[in-house]
């Protein structure tokens, strides 16, 4: 393997990518899947994670174009040069361009988009061409077996030279013959937003969006946008465990607090604030409290509420004190009886989730105003 001169590489582990335009040769969903799968080839052997963006700038901008396309390397029509990508860096750095004069396919006929994209993203991450004719980073396009992970040991050695191995799988990826695309609906373990029995582990606002946690995935929904993004939690925070218990945002600090068992993490954007996780008792709980069910931060009151079974504690930011004694949930939130799964505040309402039900609670009227389905916020 070889790297670019000066060994440029990304200084962060979570990278964003955006598909700027689409080839007419394939359905957009097939392009999305091929690109996602090509990126997961590299994330499967490194700590790197990739987040898809639908607008604005991204680290890896992906586009299709023919002939001259505003960089210094025009394409050459059908055949010959298929695509190119730039070494890590700002502006053009990391971007990948695909020659629209090729016939892009998702089979072994024509030019397979997944296979070419996996090679080009090797460049986007800092790898140069390899002389090993079996390596993915070999410059010449060859027929390949789509059921086998396209990475050769030479590629894995190269990318791990730059970024180290994946934190949660063994180094040798050659046993895994198939790349599991997290969005593949065939995977029975994937939660479905259309499931009428859907429950959530935690829900929180997050920089203007609402984040719904379920097992190892999150749905992200912006109230003003009709669609929701579906990501692996690890694509945001690789070191966060799946199946979180609770989460809440403190918008004024641009912090989101995420709980699992008797620990909690504070994140800012896609970065875990150094010094976390910390133990629950450091918040003022007694040491026998081993987990919380749900939490929200009331920005108007400056208070944070923690729910455990049918009780809650509140922490007053101003006096910096936690309630000495717990109170019954139903006393402060009439109509909300018993243990809840999740809660978040949106405008002047609270949304309590338990089981398949969601209760809207009006903070002014101090009563439940609507019964909603769990997936009310996300279009099925």
């Amino acid at each position, binding site marked *: 393997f070889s790297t*670019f*001169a000066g060994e440029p590489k990304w200084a962060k582990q979570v990278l964003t990518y955006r598909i700027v335009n689409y080839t007419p040769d394939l359905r957009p969903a097939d392009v999305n899947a091929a690109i996602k799968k090509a990126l997961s080839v590299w994330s499967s052997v490194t700590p790197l994670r990739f987040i898809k963006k639908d607008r604005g700038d991204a680290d890896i901008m992906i586009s299709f174009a023919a002939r001259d396309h505003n960089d210094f*390397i025009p*394409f050459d029509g059908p*055949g*010959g*040069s*298929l*695509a*190119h*990508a730039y070494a890590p860096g700002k502006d053009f750095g990391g971007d990948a*361009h695909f*020659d629209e004069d*090729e016939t892009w396919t998702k089979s072994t006929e024509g*030019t397979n988009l997944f296979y*070419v994209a996996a*090679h*080009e993203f090797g*460049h986007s991450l800092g790898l*140069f*061409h390899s*002389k090993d*004719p079996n390596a993915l980073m070999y*410059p*010449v*396009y060859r027929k390949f077996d789509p059921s086998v992970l396209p990475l050769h040991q030479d590629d894995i050695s190269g990318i791990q030279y730059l970024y180290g191995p994946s934190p949660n799988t063994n180094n040798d990826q050659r046993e895994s013959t198939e790349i599991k695309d997290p969005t593949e609906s065939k995977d029975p373990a994937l939660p479905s937003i259309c499931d009428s029995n859907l429950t959530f582990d935690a829900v929180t606002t997050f920089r203007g969006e609402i984040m719904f946690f379920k097992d190892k995935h999150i749905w992200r929904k912006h109230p003003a946008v009709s669609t929701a993004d579906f990501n692996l939690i690890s694509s945001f925070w690789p070191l966060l465990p799946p199946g979180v218990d609770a989460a809440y945002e403190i918008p004024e600090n641009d912090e989101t607090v995420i709980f699992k068992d008797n620990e909690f993490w504070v994140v800012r954007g896609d970065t875990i604030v150094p010094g976390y996780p910390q133990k629950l008792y450091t918040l003022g709980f007694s040491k026998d409290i081993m987990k919380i069910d749900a939490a929200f931060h009331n920005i108007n009151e400056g208070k944070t509420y923690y729910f455990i079974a049918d009780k809650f504690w509140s922490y007053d930011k101003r006096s910096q004190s936690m309630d000495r004694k717990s109170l019954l949930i139903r006393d402060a939130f009439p109509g909300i009886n018993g243990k809840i799964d999740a809660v978040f505040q949106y405008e002047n309402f609270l949304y309590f989730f338990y089981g398949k039900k969601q209760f809207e609670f009006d903070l002014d009227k101090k009563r439940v105003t609507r019964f909603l389905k769990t997936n009310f916020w996300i279009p099925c």
Partner: protein
Amino acid sequence: FPANTRQTKEEDIQLIQKYLENYYGFEKDGESSVWKSNSPIIQKLKEMQEFFGLEVTGKPDSGTLDVVQKRRCGFPDIAG
């Protein structure tokens, strides 16, 4: 026959030269494009043959032509 062969040969030479420009940093100018034993283009051709594990002849032989006509990544094979 000779005419055809000569034309094909010319096309092959053009194809290889273009390939060396695109992927091996060969910079075409009057002198350097002459195919003499130690001319720059021969050096670049040997670099390419070495990269692909071909016999390093410095000649536009069939093995070299075969590689040159294959689809590939548009990024160079040597650091620019």
